[in-house]
């Protein structure tokens, strides 16, 4: 039983859940993900492990309600249980003492970046974290992040908090500092990761991105998550999800992500219509 032991509403559309999954809690490392299924008819969706507590035997996920499954998940409450949770999947983030590491987060990517920042800092890196949100109310974990980084820089698209702009504006300033970063890690929506890579390519800073392709089994069997990296076909679920962003074919990935768009819309519309009826 994968019981939801705690639920927290981080913003109107972003929710946190702490789920009982002792095996995953024991092994999960920064950068890894899990796959969950809500009920018998449910689909399998991948979500990054945002935190884990081996002693309590729990893992934390943070998700934005965007499709049927995430909306349905968001309506579940503490004490209810998910049918299936499997993980940790994917390779963990490569954590070494690189020197100065910049972690860039967009949207719910903030949750994924938190364990990375913590691991980089524990490994003796100077960690700078750049967080971008569309607007102030979508921002979360500011204090939590501040506790595991040397410097936290925040932007909002609409200027409703700290400074107006995009993470790439701040990143450019950081990269142009007299002591530039040795490595950049970006987690967020695909256009944001692509934009980050465009900036760091100019300066030749190695940049790791955490990809979020369509996935089914998460153990290398369906091939749905394949991405072209440096001209080679790679399975994001077992070889990734992190790759050198300068080598990723983002156009192809963006197109592959739209593969089931019509069905996704249909499923969500049906779900919302049903909810409205009740």
């Amino acid at each position: 039983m994968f019981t939801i032991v705690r639920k927290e509403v981080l913003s109107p559309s972003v929710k946190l859940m702490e789920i009982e999954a002792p095996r995953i809690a024991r092994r999960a490392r920064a950068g890894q993900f899990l796959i969950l299924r809500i009920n018998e008819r449910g689909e399998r969706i991948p979500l990054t492990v945002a935190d884990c507590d081996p002693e309590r035997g729990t893992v934390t996920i943070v998700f934005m309600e965007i499709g049927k499954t995430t909306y349905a998940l968001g309506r579940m409450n503490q004490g209810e249980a998910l049918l299936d949770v499997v993980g940790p999947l994917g390779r963990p983030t490569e954590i070494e003492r690189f020197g100065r590491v910049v972690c860039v987060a967009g949207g719910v990517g903030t949750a994924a970046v938190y364990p990375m920042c913590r691991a980089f800092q524990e490994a003796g890196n100077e960690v700078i974290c750049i967080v971008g949100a569309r607007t102030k109310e979508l921002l979360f974990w500011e204090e939590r992040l501040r506790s595991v980084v040397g410097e936290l820089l925040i932007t909002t698209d609409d200027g409703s908090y700290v400074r107006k702009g995009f993470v790439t504006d701040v990143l450019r300033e950081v990269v142009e500092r007299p002591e530039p970063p040795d490595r950049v890690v970006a987690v967020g929506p695909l256009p944001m990761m692509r934009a980050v890579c465009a900036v760091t390519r100019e300066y030749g800073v190695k940049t790791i991105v955490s990809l979020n392709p369509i996935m089914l089994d998460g153990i290398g069997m369906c091939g749905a998550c394949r991405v072209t990296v440096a001209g080679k076909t790679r399975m994001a679920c077992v070889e990734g999800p992190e790759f050198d962003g300068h080598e990723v074919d983002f156009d192809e990935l963006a197109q592959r992500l739209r593969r089931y768009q019509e069905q996704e819309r249909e499923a969500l519309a049906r779900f919302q219509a049903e909810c409205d009826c009740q």
Partner: protein
Amino acid sequence: MTVERGQGAEKKKIIPERVPMSRRDPAERIRDFGEVAGGYTPDEAMAEASRCLGCKQPYCREGCPVGVDIPAFIGLIKEGLFEAAAAKVREENLLPAICGRVCPQENQCEQRCTLGQKYEPVAIGRLERFLGDYELARGKEVPETAPPSGRRVAVVGSGPGGLACAADLARLGHRVKLFESLHVPGGVLVYGIPEFRLPKRIVQAEIEALCRLGVEIECNVVVGRTVTIDELFAEGFDAVFVGTGAGSPRFPGIPGQNLPGVQSANGLLTRVNLMRAYRFPEYDTPVRIGRRVVVLGGGNVAMDAARTALRLGADEVRVVYRRSREELPARQEEVHHAEEEGVRFTFLAAPVRCLAGPDGRLGALECLRFELGAPDASGRRSPVPIPGSEFIMEVDNVIVAIGQGPNPLIQQTTPDLEVSPKGMIVADPETGATSKRGVFAGGDIVAGAATVIMAMGAGRKAARAIDAYLRGGVDPWNRR
């Protein structure tokens, strides 16, 4: 028609043709995922069994990878002793309802059938299926198990190899826990083979029988990620059997192979079989199939994918295979069923590249024609490309079914496990013993993509070796 054949003093009646098995009409069956072949009634089974010549030298048995005593079980069917016949099969084959449906009998037992040299061979597979179904319908008895040995075995992967290994170990008195990475047990029997060929209720019944033997099953555990082999030993298991199969799809390595619209057969089949995407939106997982579909490859997986595409509503499904019809590795029956249902074939052609349409998705497939040259290492004539023979087909989907490699996760996370250059686990063919003490392996993860019966046979061999190892009889690691 019957033919009299003199055989010493006794004369044996020869019935040249097999008793036909009921099959659903192609036009009807491609509208759903229900099973195609109906199976024999008891009368039909007895009639078919009576065709067996009961040869003194049973070549059929030699043709069976696990050596089922075929003449004996057929003899019992002939007399209407179905329970005894089923028990006879079960001495060597634990999954008759499954193997009777999916074994390539025409290359195994039935190929060696004496009657088959001149007439139609005895329908051994159909008879086996009859017994398997007969047993399942009556509710399988729980076989007796040996007294508890006090030893624990972890079986990794719940496909045919793992199921067979777990069943035998449990009967030998060991405590067995089966670990499965997906959310339901059964492996390829569940995610790979479609409902119309192997109904999931049959797999389910076999798994329930296993649970009644006392085997515990934990799903959602990816050994290699969730837990390592060493941690399984630390959890108290005394031995581990790895049967993680060959589920990692190969791609042709051609330009455009990652365009939206190109997918692996495994991906399509998993969506449909495991996730029931054919019932979207009732089930959440979507599936998309266009009007014109090309399936690359000529094995059973290719046939399954092609027939699945038809059932999902594709207008035109074409299998493109680089050799000729004679070399098709798929079971003849599946090829026949596919053709009946309207699947078309282009032989001696292979893909060169996938081309994007104006919307950026797959729009066309460029292929090259081949001719057959000299036989290769496998004895099959190898296809040779004909220069300048490129041709283009407009397609909405390409489904890749050109083979599967071993699942890589255990090998990646078990450094002291010897692995072949192709990524397979190296194991003794007789015992399944690997390079790592206490770890056994078998099935596709060792042999490469093969058949259900081969994996089952390997699982059973390993079970015997594990039993001997745990009881202190034979230690495969002391002989080295």
